[in-house]
């Protein structure tokens, strides 16, 4: 079983702050492996343990993201692919997915591609489905668990708004993964960290992947971020307590006063 996991390094937004213009203050923020991606990596390693094979990881990011890939190797992944070139600067999710899909084609075929369902910075959830689309693969999002793999079929548990669905998918396929609430991410062991430095780490430049270069980077990105800001704070609202009938009457009066109802 050849598995590839797409990962991203993100700012540690657990204590995120915004400036007066509503822009996230990135200074002083540590870079970490996106937790959705770490879950996908750990799920891939679990699959490898059960069914055998090899787990590779891939990112498209500046050089500093090496520490995220190395963390994946330290956790137990076998091989890392790092796609990095100034030509990819300013890529939106479409240009990123396009470049990733080209790199995947270049590397070879995989039985299974996994990714975090979304990243904690952009939170778009685009990459997985778009890469699958470029590669012409079936995909399932919100995958909490790969229940079983039998030949070229996988059974996955996917989170829905009001429950779960079990989906049987023909492989090769792409699963965008979301950690269950009980997920506790692992820390790389000391021996894992030492072994990581001797594992294959492959760099790709823009010239190393075949494709339409006009679709790379800013030029290939139709999305324009005009402004980022936190949603306005909502007031707590008024709570009517006491007798049920009285409370309903009061609510109706208020709604009438505000001309919501007549």
């Amino acid at each position, binding site marked *: 079983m050849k598995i590839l996991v797409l990962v991203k390094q993100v700012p540690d937004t657990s204590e995120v702050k915004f400036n007066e213009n509503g822009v996230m203050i990135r200074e002083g923020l540590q870079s970490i492996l996106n937790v959705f991606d770490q879950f996908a990596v750990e799920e891939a390693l679990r699959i490898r343990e059960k069914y055998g094979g090899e787990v590779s990881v891939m990112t498209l990011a500046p050089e500093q993201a*090496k*520490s995220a890939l*190395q*963390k994946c190797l*330290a956790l137990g992944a076998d091989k890392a692919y790092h796609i990095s070139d100034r030509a990819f600067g300013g890529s939106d999710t479409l240009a990123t997915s396009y470049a990733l899909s080209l790199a995947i084609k270049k590397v070879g075929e995989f039985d299974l591609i996994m990714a975090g369902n979304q990243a904690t910075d952009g939170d778009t959830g685009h990459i997985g489905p778009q890469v699958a689309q470029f590669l012409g693969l079936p995909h399932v999002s919100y995958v909490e668990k790969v229940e079983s793999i039998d030949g070229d079929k996988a059974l996955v548990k996917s989170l829905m708004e009001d429950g779960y669905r079990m989906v049987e998918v023909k492989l090769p396929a792409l699963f965008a993964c979301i950690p269950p609430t009980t997920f506790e991410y692992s*820390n*790389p*062991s*000391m*021996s894992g*960290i*030492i072994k*990581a*430095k001797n594992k294959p780490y492959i760099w790709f430049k823009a010239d190393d992947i075949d494709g339409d270069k006009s679709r790379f980077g800013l030029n290939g990105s139709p999305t324009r971020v005009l402004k980022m800001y936190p949603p306005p704070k909502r007031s707590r609202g008024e709570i009517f307590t006491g007798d049920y009938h009285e409370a309903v009457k009061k609510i109706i009066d208020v709604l009438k006063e505000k001309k919501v109802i007549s």
Partner: protein
Amino acid sequence: MLDFTFSEEQDMIRESVRDFAQKKIAPIAMEMEKTKQIPEDVIQGMADLGLIAPTVSTKYGGQGFDAVTAGIIAEELSRADPTGSIPVFYLVQASWGHVFDKYGTEEAKQEILPNVTKGKWFLGIATTESDAGSDVLGTRTTIKKEGDKYVVNGEKMYISGVREAYTRGGGHITIAKQFPELGAKGMTMFYLPLQSKGIIPTYVDDLGREGISTGGFTIDNVTIPKHYIVGQEGKGFYIVHEGYEYARGLIAVICASAGLKSLERGEKYLKERKAFGMPLAKFEALQFRLAEHYTKLSFLRLGSYWALWTYDREGQKKATRFEVSKAIAMAKMFASEWSTQAIDEVMQWQGAFGYTRECVDQAAWRAIRSFSWAEGSKEIMRVIVSRELLGKEYTSYK
């Protein structure tokens, strides 16, 4: 060329240890003051990550880490555990695991070290006696060779991890007089399993570091096999100092880390707490104290890593034994003092709350205070440095 950065691998080690320690140790740290033990899942978690005696070779289940890398782990454990219990549990095994790996017999290493690195057994150090501490030559415990075995008699006191080794398994690297007439050249080091027949443990009620036991044991005609001798007969005095130097370097890092962490808590408090209509942080008198303590502890941190780096350079034949002794003694000389002064200041900022058991800093103060003498008193550190500066002939002690 000067370079104060750690390697990529060391950065990753720090990140992993910090994350683990903040997630698993910090939330339960103060609880250890009541339970008087380190939770089993924390010990197992440390073992799974490879944090117990990581200085031991990979052949025996360790990581083969150098002293600087061992210091990084010590720093992160100290940040997470203000009670100092886990830092002590760590530093003792890291230091003496290293010594055992270097000087122990192959048979003993195979038997003991994998159990230590897996977190099953505890490996400690027992040199102190009721009447002998820094003055190792004052040791009264004896070891005699009888056939192909050795018989030990005596007692040890103020030893870390007695309960841990007595109940979990493992033992202490111990020193005793074999040839009293030879002085320093008559002392032998050996591994003493604490579950041996003839060992009777006792415990003392320490002021701090309460998650790990301190105690002693009497040694009544305890027989140990030949392969438990560490180094050669008569070399114990010299080896024990090597081990203590390793431990002192780690202690210096632990002190700096605990003090800096306490200052972090203090900074937060100064910004939040208001007096006379403004945050305490606006009072220049307090700002200056913060700046002074931070500066001293940052230099202590740098000095500690420099000392551990010097230790590693000795292994690479780039530093002499004496340079290492001096560097380590310089790092440890003010470590406890500066750190407890900073923590004391943070307690002062918090007023009456700083004097309650709810305040984390008082636990840190009690823990760090112990390092003024543990593994070599601050007075002995001055003796070592002045001896290296002036020459042995000006030393009043043997």
